[in-house]
């Protein structure tokens, strides 16, 4: 995923239909937009606002060779590798989460050279999306220098600052072909409001060549226009809008539901004995088995969804 020449970036953006138009579609139709081999920026971070429903749909559609970029990668990354949807993950940190230990799936795939875990510092991932969002080929930064992280990355440059003479690292713009972002609410045109931590999603939306939004609910454009200072992603960057309640489950969506910890513990336990068999069985049961997202949620279980919702909404309690 190298910096595009500016002409090419402009050409791709110029070709997009950026007009104010309805973009509501099904998960399946949105998944069909993403071809095999596409570069995909994934919104949220770790267990937060993961576009799980969209990843679920892409895996079910049998997508292959996706090059995935995310700030911090959790279980969705394990599922992308194990399903064969991706063999290349660009991220700063990759494991389900510190409380569950080092990812056995990540280890299996990377140590066995079955997949590439391309490691950049967290800020470097963020600045690569930001450069992409700004329409510049790189941004300068002051970390990574001297470390082996930068030493093993061919796609950086070190310069002496033409103003101060100081050493700086330049990181190249990342303009993924697709961004998958999950939000609390948006309108049919894709004007999105995000509550809580925005992570890198605003830059990611601007950087990507196409944006697929999943949303807990679709609201009217009138509602958006009553508070334009609450819009975080503008419609003109968005290509698809899919309404998916609990679209991040078993991860969290700020203010609505926390992670489904019991499910995540059970998932981790299932992978502990035999990671490959464990995750294959998990994929079969939760990804390939259900006929619909609602059936998937039913498998997660109403009791845990309610518990996660109670915890999620409590963020607004005094």
């Amino acid at each position, binding site marked *: 995923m190298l910096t595009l020449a500016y002409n090419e970036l402009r050409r791709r953006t110029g070709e997009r239909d950026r007009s104010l138009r309805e973009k509501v579609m099904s998960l399946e139709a949105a998944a069909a937009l993403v071809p095999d081999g596409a570069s995909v920026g994934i919104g949220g971070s770790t267990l937060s606002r993961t576009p799980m429903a969209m990843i679920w749909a892409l895996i079910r559609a049998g997508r292959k060779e996706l090059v995935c970029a995310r700030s911090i990668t959790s279980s969705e990354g394990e599922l992308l590798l194990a399903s064969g949807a991706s063999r290349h993950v660009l991220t700063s940190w990759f494991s389900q989460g510190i409380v569950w230990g080092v990812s056995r799936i990540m280890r299996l795939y990377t140590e066995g050279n079955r997949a590439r875990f391309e490691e950049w510092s967290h800020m470097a991932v963020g600045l690569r999306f930001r450069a992409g969002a700004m329409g510049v080929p790189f941004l300068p930064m*002051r970390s990574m220098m001297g470390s082996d992280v930068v030493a093993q990355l061919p796609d950086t440059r070190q310069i002496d600052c033409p103003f101060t003479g100081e050493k700086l690292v330049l990181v190249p713009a990342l303009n993924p072909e697709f961004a998958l972002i999950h939000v609390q609410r948006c309108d049919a045109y894709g004007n999105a409001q995000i509550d809580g931590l925005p992570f890198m999603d605003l830059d990611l939306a601007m950087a990507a060549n196409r944006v697929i939004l999943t949303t807990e609910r679709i609201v009217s454009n009138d509602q958006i226009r009553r508070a334009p200072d609450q819009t975080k992603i503008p419609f003109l960057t968005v290509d698809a809008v899919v309404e998916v309640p609990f679209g991040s489950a078993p991860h969290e969506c700020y203010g609505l539901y926390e992670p489904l910890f019991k499910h995540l513990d059970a998932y981790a336990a299932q992978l502990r004995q035999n990671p490959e068999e464990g995750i294959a069985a998990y994929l079969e049961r939760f990804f390939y088995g259900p006929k619909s997202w609602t059936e998937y949620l039913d498998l997660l279980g109403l009791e845990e969804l309610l518990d996660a919702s109670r915890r999620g909404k409590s963020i607004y309690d005094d």
Partner: protein
Amino acid sequence: MRAAAERAFMTTSTTTYTASELLAVMSAGLLCDGQVVFAGVGIPLLAATLAQRLHAPGLTILFEGGTIGAFVEPGKLPPSTNEQRCTRRANMVLSSTDVLLLLQRGYVDIGFMGGAQIDQYGNLNSSFIGDPQHPTSRLPGSGGGNDIASLTQMIVAMRHEKRRFVKKVDFVTSPGFLAGDNSRCDAGLVAGGMYRVVTDLGMLGFDERSKRMELLALHPGVTADQVQQNTGFELLIASEVPVTNPPTENELAALRHLDPDRIYTA
């Protein structure tokens, strides 16, 4: 025989504590009221929160998920620094890129992380065990670690084991003083650097000129020999090596109130 395992439960006159609890209390003691600390998940998050509840009510805690001025609630520790539990009663949230940029802009006094492997110059490895081209173990990676270590004064809290304290890390994920002397600055990292390593055996710092790791203090009941035996390189020893005060009942009670399920202090 590993000291950490041996010392899994330690006693003061009236109470016992785990190695993780010792780490949390001892590293919390290094944080001062009024400072701005950028804390990683696990012990750092817990210790910073503990300091805030004990001696440093005006401690400003930042998380890489995007939280400024966090106030984590007892019993509701987040599974990483990216979930809503990090933000409840916080002063601000902003993008993860922007909170990391605060490190670069210089607003942060102290970076505070855990460590998997460290070397005599304070370089941290959380990426590869063994040859990075053919690792025996791929670790989760940098996260914000590289950025934090590149741009601030660092406190690292970690278990003191020979396999973790190595002469040269297999891979420099997060830079300490690189090859010592001025090499960090020469590489372009003109600010920050390792400040303290807190372990379950003692407190360590770095020699001002050579930048080699130095034993500064011992936890109660630990000898300098024991520390050296559990370290894979030759430690410098400060001219005076005092003994730290053991965790008080008050500190342990506050800690256990914050982490009743021992998510971070198992």
